[in-house]
């Protein structure tokens, strides 16, 4: 490294470096989304865990324990298994969001995140890429469960399927964005598991995914109605049971937008904590 007599070419030729304008935030987002998809395909355990758990829950609870539940009258002729299917799709979104968010902590420990943060890419594009990448992976997994609809005598029309998949998309974006926001400020996977148990699972349990809120006590019913994840679950369930709710769908997308804005703000905020 020593005894060189270099010509200061950068000083005399500024164009030798990189023009900031060449870095497109959207390309950066695309790169991170592509990376998330590649990593998902190369980690089959994530696929197995994300799909296997809800399928098992659905089989056990929807079939094995179906006689243990007495659905409220509002469900009409729908079976408990058909009621449970949208809840399981929500659960897939929650699990996928958790896996995707944990990867941020791993990225930080591996050093990959630092190399992205020192690049000219604006941080919002990094947050957007992580969220959309995780959401696409989650959406694909949740959408797979829709294939079980015919087995449950759910007569799914084309538009009902589209509306349900839109609901799934909003749910996946919202939950992944919430996960990204928490994971960005969480230093260890152990700490994130605590967040998961305190935030994600209660939110899912109180979303009407497992139990119809109609039979709940007044205060619990209020909590369920105020829980944004309830809107997501309803946005998926409505079309499947022949009662699409555009209000719930709009609420789900508002929730997704707010969560994404929150994640972007947290990722972009300057911090004195070392990344």
């Amino acid at each position, binding site marked *: 490294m020593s005894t060189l007599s270099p010509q200061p070419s950068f*000083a005399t030729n500024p164009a030798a470096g990189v023009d900031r304008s060449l870095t497109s935030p959207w390309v950066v987002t695309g790169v991170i989304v592509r990376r998330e998809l590649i990593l998902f395909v190369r980690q089959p355990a994530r696929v197995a865990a994300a799909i296997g758990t809800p399928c098992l829950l659905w089989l056990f609870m929807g079939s094995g324990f179906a006689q243990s539940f007495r659905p409220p009258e509002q469900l009409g002729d729908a079976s408990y298994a058909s009621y449970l299917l949208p809840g399981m799709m929500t659960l897939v979104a929650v699990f996928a969001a958790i896996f995707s968010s944990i990867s941020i902590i791993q990225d930080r420990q591996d050093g990959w995140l630092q190399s992205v943060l020192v690049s000219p890419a604006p941080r919002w594009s990094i947050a957007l890429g992580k969220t959309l990448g995780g959401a696409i992976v989650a959406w694909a997994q949740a959408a797979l469960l829709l294939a079980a609809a015919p087995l449950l005598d759910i007569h799914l029309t084309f538009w009902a399927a589209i509306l349900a998949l839109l609901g799934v998309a909003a749910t996946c974006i919202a939950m992944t964005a919430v996960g990204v926001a928490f994971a960005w400020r969480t230093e260890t996977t152990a700490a994130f598991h605590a967040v998961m148990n305190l935030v994600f699972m209660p939110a899912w349990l109180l979303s009407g995914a497992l139990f119809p809120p109609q039979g709940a006590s007044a205060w619990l019913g209020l909590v369920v109605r105020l829980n944004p994840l309830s809107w997501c679950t309803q946005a998926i369930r409505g079309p499947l049971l022949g009662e699409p709710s555009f209000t719930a769908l709009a609420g789900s997308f508002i929730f997704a937008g707010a969560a994404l804005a929150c994640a972007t703000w947290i990722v972009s905020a300057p911090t004195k904590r070392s990344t």
Partner: protein
Amino acid sequence: MTTTQPQRATETATAGLVIRGLSFSYPGRRRRAARQVLHEIDLDIAPGRTVAILGPNGSGKSTLIKLICSILPPDAGSISVFGASRPADIRPMVSVVFQSDGLDPHLTVYENLRDQACLYGIPRREAQSRITKQLEEAGLTDRRRDLVKTLSRGLARRVDLARAMLHRPKLLLLDEPTVGLDPMAREAFLQMVESEQQAEGGRIVLLSTHLIDEADRCDRVVLMHQGRIVADGPPTTLREELGDRRVTVLNTDTQSAPSLCDLAWERTAGGWSAPLDHDSDRVAAVVSQLANSGLAFTIAPPTLADVFEHHTGAQLDLDTDVIQEQASE
């Protein structure tokens, strides 16, 4: 131990790296006060220079690197890189090789470099050409399709350097890049840095290290201790200040060394140290006196460790526990 004012290299940093009054502290936790890690750092580096920041763990080297690459915001002071002072303008010109690889272990070597090219907006065709060239220079062409996690630590470091060089940075920051490498891999990495620097002379390379031999290979060495620059200059100049040779008496708490020989003794963390001139009779007398006293001593040309000890009174190979960088924890 001397110096209240650090020695400064007389280098004019024309549009290179200019740091003025840079201070930084990590916020306190659980009612603990904030810990100041850097104290009003001033540093000028001209284009084309290879500069080592030498100091023990906890001296503030890594934090300084993170401030320069704008991962951390400074409390006070300014940083200018080739005339740019806003982080958004600095980042395209800077590249960093951290202690841990900035690579995704689940992607291939090629995929990592391709993504890096996208992050810096390098057009696809140009990116392909540069990736091919970088892999050839790193001797990794035949490993381009291998997952990074299958590479040895030494090879992964070379890929990381290739990644960092892909957008041809004007300022290359190396934060203890050879930690954990065996001697051969370390040498291969440093030679790769040297050859990259020879190929593009206007680049500034800033290497943080606690290894003397790495610092000795650089044009200039900045010695850091407890968040302050204590000495700054070419390694030969810094060593020459301590004389041609130096006698060091090891690990003695007594006043015996100064009482035995009439030299300009300095108390150091390891014992006593003093410069020794070329007078062979004088050297022989000192050797005789010390040998007869039964003290363990060495006579050798001064090293950068001696320079550090001279300026700080602390040993270079010991961690500075006073300041713990949260970054590395």
